[in-house]
């Protein structure tokens, strides 16, 4: 056999192994696992819809429907308004302050819109992929300071979320939000800024040099020269190439030489096998388990690269890999704050009038949308959980259910935003400053916004009787042993670590299950 045929045979064997591993008729638990990992915690109806079916067919369908997905709601109004005047042209402090407040308001509108899409979408895989790329190409509103630019970047991420990684990379690299965030906009041939060149290799394509990225400091310097001239037209905040700033000289990057421009250098990076490997391993950590298996990553990365960086190819193969279905990997990931908030609301069918409380709660738990902590994004996994965030996570579900249990007896809003059970606004200036100043901490939306949040929180509710009735249970009765086991399987990815006291009735039983550490896993 020729080497190519050997390779083809190996690939075929690997493909068959994957096909064998993915169940032909998914159990409830397997169906639930697939939906949790590709979306957020699913409803029972969503699980029932795919249980018993062939995983291969369902995965193909999930990916195809996510590719065709469009947002449910029109974007916030500000996206069609003329771009704001550059801050440097605003002379008076009053104008600058008004500008800051406007930016804060607009970015909250954008987050609130996105949160609603995540909660209500029929194709959660699409939203998960947008969130994945937002974290991969981490860019913060705090530095970009243009809600419209953040919206524009969001559109770039959305368009290629399950599309082509090459187009996505080129799109993001030229997008004004990234040009501001990593200082490319002012990079010129006399003084090339290395910030973007470094991060595009380390974080966006190849991975750290020490971890197999395979680039040198010299590669960064040379690549930085190629990106000079990629700039912004400040009048409408769009991308603009400025030839006068571009270095037309010869560059040598990753062993290749030529009069490269930025696009050419990005393509040189994508020619490296390390790029496909790095992206595949990152997708593995999102979908499969915290520790990628090198051999499997290599197999999928080769297909990913051979497909011309078709993201759907990589995602489908990961979802059909034996590791994805291995029972040991069930519950091996930790829910992000967005997973926890969106999943809880979706799974129980909480009703609400406004998603802003969920935006702020997620921020308080450490995931402030549009404001990742730095260019590396949210570190995730065990970093989500510390003594503060764990208690806040528990307080979140505790209070959602308590409010239901006490309905009619108490006027307390179901979610208190501040530590200690108090709402942030009432907690005095020190706390407001803390909330406003810490990286990753929620920014409060002003007095009107505070009222809006309080009102939104008061209207979050859920019907435990109806929810439990789909399993034959009742809000005011202790579940049978069979129902207890069913609820644990429905709500937890691994068995509960703690027993629940005998005599605990339905709604309290649900609340207590969400306090179990196992509820934080997915």
């Amino acid at each position, binding site marked *: 056999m020729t080497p190519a045929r050997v390779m083809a045979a190996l690939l075929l064997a690997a493909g068959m192994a994957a096909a064998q591993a993915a169940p032909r008729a998914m159990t409830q638990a397997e169906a639930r696992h697939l939906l949790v990992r590709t979306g957020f915690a699913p409803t029972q109806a969503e699980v029932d819809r795919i249980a018993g079916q062939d995983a291969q067919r369902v995965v193909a369908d999930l990916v195809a429907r996510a590719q065709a997905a469009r947002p449910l709601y029109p974007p916030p109004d500000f996206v069609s308004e003329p771009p704001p005047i550059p801050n440097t042209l605003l002379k008076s402090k009053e104008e600058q302050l008004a500008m800051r407040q406007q930016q804060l308001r607009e970015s909250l509108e954008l987050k609130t819109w996105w949160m609603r899409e995540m909660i209500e979408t029929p194709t959660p895989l699409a939203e998960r992929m947008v969130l994945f790329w937002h974290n991969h190409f981490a860019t913060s509103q705090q530095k970009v300071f243009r809600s419209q630019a953040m919206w524009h970047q969001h559109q770039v991420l959305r368009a290629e979320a399950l599309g082509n990684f090459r187009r996505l990379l080129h799109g993001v690299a030229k997008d004004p939000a990234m040009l501001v965030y990593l200082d490319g906009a002012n990079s010129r041939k006399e003084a090339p800024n290395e910030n973007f060149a470094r991060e595009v290799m380390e974080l966006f394509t190849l991975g750290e040099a020490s971890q197999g990225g395979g680039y040198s400091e010299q590669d960064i310097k040379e690549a930085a020269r190629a990106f000079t001239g990629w700039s912004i037209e400040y009048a409408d905040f769009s991308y603009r190439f400025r030839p006068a700033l571009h270095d037309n000289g010869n560059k040598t990057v990753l062993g290749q030489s030529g009069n490269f421009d930025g696009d050419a250098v990005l393509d040189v990076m994508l020619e490296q096998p390390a790029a496909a490997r790095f992206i595949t391993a990152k997708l593995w950590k999102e979908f499969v388990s915290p520790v990628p298996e090198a051999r499997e990553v290599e197999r999928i990365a080769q297909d990913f690269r051979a497909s011309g960086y078709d993201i759907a190819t990589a995602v489908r193969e990961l979802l059909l890999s034996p590791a994805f279905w291995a029972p040991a990997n069930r519950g091996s990931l930790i829910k992000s704050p967005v997973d926890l908030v969106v999943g809880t609301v979706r799974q129980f069918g909480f009703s609400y009038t406004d998603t802003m409380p969920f935006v702020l709660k997620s921020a308080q738990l450490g995931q402030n949308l549009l404001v990742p902590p730095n260019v590396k994004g949210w570190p995730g996994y065990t970093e989500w959980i510390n003594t503060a965030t764990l208690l806040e996570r528990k307080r979140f579900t505790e209070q959602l259910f308590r409010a239901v249990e006490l309905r009619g007896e108490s006027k307390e809003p179901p979610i208190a935003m501040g530590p200690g059970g108090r709402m942030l606004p009432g907690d*005095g200036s020190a706390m407001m400053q803390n909330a406003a100043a810490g990286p990753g901490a929620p920014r409060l939306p002003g007095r009107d916004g505070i009222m809006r949040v309080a009102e939104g929180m008061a209207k979050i509710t859920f019907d435990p009787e109806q929810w439990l009735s789909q399993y034959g249970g009742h809000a005011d009765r202790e579940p049978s042993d069979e129902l207890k086991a069913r609820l644990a399987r429905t709500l937890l990815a*691994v068995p509960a670590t703690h027993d629940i006291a005998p005599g605990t009735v339905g709604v309290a039983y649900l609340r207590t299950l969400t306090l179990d550490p196992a509820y934080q896993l997915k």
Partner: protein
Amino acid sequence: MKRRDVLNLFSSATGAALLGTHAPGWAQAVQQRATGATDRILVLIELKGGNDGLNMVVPYTDDTYYQLRSSIAIARDSVIRIDSRMGLHPDLQALVPLWEKDELAIVQGVGYPQANLSHFRSIEIWETASRSGEYLADGWVARAMKAGYGRDVHFAAEGVLIGLNDFGPLAGARAVTLYNPEAFVNQARFAMPGHASGNPALQHLLRVENDVSEAAQALRGEKFAFATEFPANGFGSSVRAAAQVVATQRGKAGVPVIVLTLGSFDTHQGQLGIQAGLLRQLGEGLAALRSSLTELGAWDRTLVMTFSEFGRRARQNQSNGTDHGTVAPHFVAGGAVRGGLYGPAPELTRLDGTQNLYYSTDFRQLYATVARDWWGVNPDNVVRGRFEPVGFLRT
């Protein structure tokens, strides 16, 4: 002899050598303490927003200072003179007793190479003790714990952050955040401690559950009735909470690090009034901390250190404020501190291309001092490289 004292004596390499040289109660009585003793308390105070150093420690004889700051300079005759060139902002009056008792060190010209002028990025650099272009996950205090401080004792928590959601220098450490110990103990009812088993993610969760309940257990206890009057403002409440944390630790393995915060010092406009109010809170809060910890017999084993993401521009701006800069002085206080001025004050006639001051002391030198001389751990592991310690500790 209290259990904690026994633990202390056997816990550090140098502690054992002290066995027999001190009677029970030495923890309260002795000022010269062994490096690395595990009953030590580090109180970090973050001056959020970037504190303007030039108006805090004022070069009142420098004409350039008055030229650069025509409308916001601190008048020569109102500064609290601490030597022939430098003076404290008048609203730091409460610190004068500390200065006179030689318990206040001022490290001047603190900064780092390739300063980043973004609040968010620069505070991250200070918190993780990273180089300017490097992103680290662990805070520098967490690295000191991993480098072996308190290896043989089991702290109730490696740190307590008062009123902060962000773990900052304690990221990666076994730390808890609280507004006051009582409220934390109350919230900790949600914790479900248990044997850490299952996959690594679940093990991590169970460890954190255990950390919460362990810290809550240690922070339980009767409220200490301080004679000290705490200032009636936000920072005063934080100082009171810090003192209560120390009080609950009598006879226990202790909490070695407490983080407080004050600010915002981001005085782009109308700086004079804003900074005066904040510095008054800082001075009075520090004085209350000293007084309350003295009541507990803990001041001699306490080291207080300020930090901030950056200083501010030497020249004032058009709005009677100052913009983000590079360099600022920092306070170090405590019963074991050798007071005085450390490091040269920045030269106001020498500015870099961005009109900023040059630093003379790297902030990692302060951390290296704490690591080596306060905790007795190898500073190289904490600050990731060689940084010359500053001699502000008596022991």
